[in-house]
């Protein structure tokens, strides 16, 4: 409600700002009073831009998510009054062997999938950004897996992976592999199979974003570099990579989040099986809320969502910090706490998944990791203030 109430207030102020020449934030040193007035005007101006999207977004998405944060600490079952249960849901999650497996398998899917998809999408975008005959067709072909119904994709890939009748194993047989994997019906090979299909399906999607990003790099830069005798690799490293940085940031953040919350593909390809070998966190959440054997434990599922949220947030914040540091002149040791922090994070995740205390419990590693990250964040913001 308050967001709507504040909406009519905001547009009035910026009009004044606009009339007075639209002074902008960027370090205009002056008396404090003037500075404060500018700050207020900028705040109003900023909100006036954000409001139309924010009002809808806050009401439809943010409010239910805030509620979910509350429900994670209750026994809510969607039908009766939620009771506050404190940390009970989280304690149950930590004891749950299936959930631990799901966390481990989420990382197992996400990390290779992020790397493979990111690289292939970029390579495709660069390849299909050239002047080629029929480039429109190839671009469409690359994007086609993403628009084909996921049900059909799962069916066809399962057919291709079929252990006795599938073409993939026939090819492997042909090349002399005596015991080809059983792919989606093997607890060892199901996840690699899903990673392959996930990469195959999504690289066209991220290719589109990279293609759009490539258009923002002025062509003159490449021509100038060619004149200077730079080869293709040098042009890629010194022009394409820096020029694509905003796009790369967007792609890696989205790709990471989408990979950590992978669900659809798992559901249609293997439905979590065989056994629990392809359970991921999102699948666990689905199973508790809407799955075939749903227990309707929405409070419990909210707690699991919070764990997933925390993982995604960590990865996202990490990328934000790296992105912010990229422009800064920084001492050689400044990336050390980040590396140490990541090691702590890996130890925490590993300790949690195998249920094993590595000298100290995984919870302590998590604390150490958070401390490292706070340090990195503070350091970065100090550097930024000094250098802006």
């Amino acid at each position, binding site marked *: 409600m308050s967001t709507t109430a504040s909406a009519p207030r905001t547009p009035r102020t*910026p009009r004044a*700002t*606009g*009339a007075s020449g*639209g002074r*902008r*934030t*960027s370090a205009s040193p002056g008396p404090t009073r003037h500075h404060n007035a500018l*700050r207020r005007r900028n*705040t109003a*101006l*900023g909100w006036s*831009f954000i409001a*139309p*999207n*924010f009002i*809808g*977004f806050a009401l*439809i*998405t*943010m*409010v239910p998510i805030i*509620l979910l944060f509350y429900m994670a600490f209750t026994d809510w079952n969607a039908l009766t009054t939620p009771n506050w249960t404190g940390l009970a849901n989280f304690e149950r999650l930590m004891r749950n062997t299936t959930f631990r497996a799901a966390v481990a398998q989420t990382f197992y899917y996400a990390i290779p999938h992020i790397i493979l998809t990111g690289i292939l999408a970029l390579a495709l975008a660069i390849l299909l*950004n050239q002047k*080629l005959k029929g480039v*429109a*067709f190839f*671009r469409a*072909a690359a994007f*086609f897996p993403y*628009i*084909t119904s*996921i049900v*059909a994709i799962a069916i*066809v890939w399962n057919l291709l992976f*079929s252990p006795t009748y599938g073409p993939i194993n026939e090819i492997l047989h042909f090349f002399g592999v005596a015991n080809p994997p059983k792919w989606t019906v093997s607890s060892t090979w199901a996840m690699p199979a899903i990673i392959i299909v996930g990469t*195959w399906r999504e690289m066209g*999607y991220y290719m*589109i*974003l990279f293609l759009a*990003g490539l*258009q*923002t*790099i*002025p062509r003159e830069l490449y021509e100038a570099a060619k004149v200077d005798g730079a080869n293709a690799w040098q042009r890629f490293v010194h022009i394409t990579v820096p020029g694509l940085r*905003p*796009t790369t940031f967007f792609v890696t*953040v*989205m790709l990471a*989040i989408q990979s950590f919350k992978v*669900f659809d593909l798992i559901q249609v390809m293997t439905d979590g099986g065989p056994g629990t070998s392809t359970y991921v966190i999102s699948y666990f959440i689905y199973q508790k*809320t809407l799955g075939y054997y749903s227990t309707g434990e929405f409070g419990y*599922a909210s707690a*699991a*969502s919070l764990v*997933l*949220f925390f993982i*995604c947030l960590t990865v*996202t*914040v990490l990328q934000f910090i790296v992105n912010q540091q990229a422009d800064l002149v920084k001492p050689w040791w400044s990336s050390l706490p980040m590396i140490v922090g990541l090691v702590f994070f890996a130890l925490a995740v590993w300790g949690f998944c195998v249920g094993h205390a590595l000298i100290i419990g995984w919870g302590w590693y998590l604390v150490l990791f958070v401390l490292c990250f706070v340090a990195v964040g503070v350091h970065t913001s100090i550097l930024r203030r000094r250098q802006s």
Partner: protein
Amino acid sequence: MMGKGLHRVGKAVLYVFLVAFAVFLLVPFFWMIMSSLKKNIDVFTIPIRWIPQVFQWHNYVDIWTQAAMGTWLQNTLILSVVVTLLQLLTGSFAAYGFARVRFPGRDALFLAYVATIAVPWQAYMIPQFILMTKIHLTGKGLWPMIVLQAFGAFGVFLMKQFFETIPEELSESARLDGLSEYGIWLRIMLPLSGPALASLALLTFVTTWNDYMGPLIYLRNRAYFTIQIGLKTFQADPQGSSLNALLFAGSVLSILPIAIIFLLGQRFFIEGIATSGMKG
């Protein structure tokens, strides 16, 4: 001479590679077309039969006469167009606020926007449904889906990243010419973000077009079915028998509009279009 020959060989190799790659990418689509021409009961067999024994062309007639394919297409088209336009408009507008106006709390707010993408929808869809019912949006035709999909964080994030690549000097000189911030957004930023707007439009359109869990929950009235839930009516529960061939015929038809839109839209991804006038 030799260089030229090599170049030609290289190009041929490239084309062979690209064609093989395209085949690899289009296999499921081919299987869908073939399955849509089989009898319902013959879609899944051992071993796989790629080409139907007898082509059942009438499936493509049945889907219009026995099911409301026309209504579904119309609803999906309206929904996708409206949602895409709203995403482009509000997303790029908000993105300007995040990219070019500095105010306290901006980065935290932006992080909150992005972070919500990380929450799985299954977990908060019930509170969302209750909320939508409380504000009397459920059961109002396509409105609940429009409201649900139009205000995402995705568009804001994407457009912000692209706005940041546009040189600040352009805005600065426009400001000296007396253009307001809104004017800069409209006259400078939008025209220079063609590829970004095109990719946002394309991706939003596809996402809306293919979404089924949202419409399944919010669009209960048959008159407002979208194509994805319409196709779901061909799928029976485990005890019944699904109309698989019709399902895939519908899926093939539902892909065609997106393919056309893609072929029209991809010309925005041509080198140089965004760089005109960017020589700061």
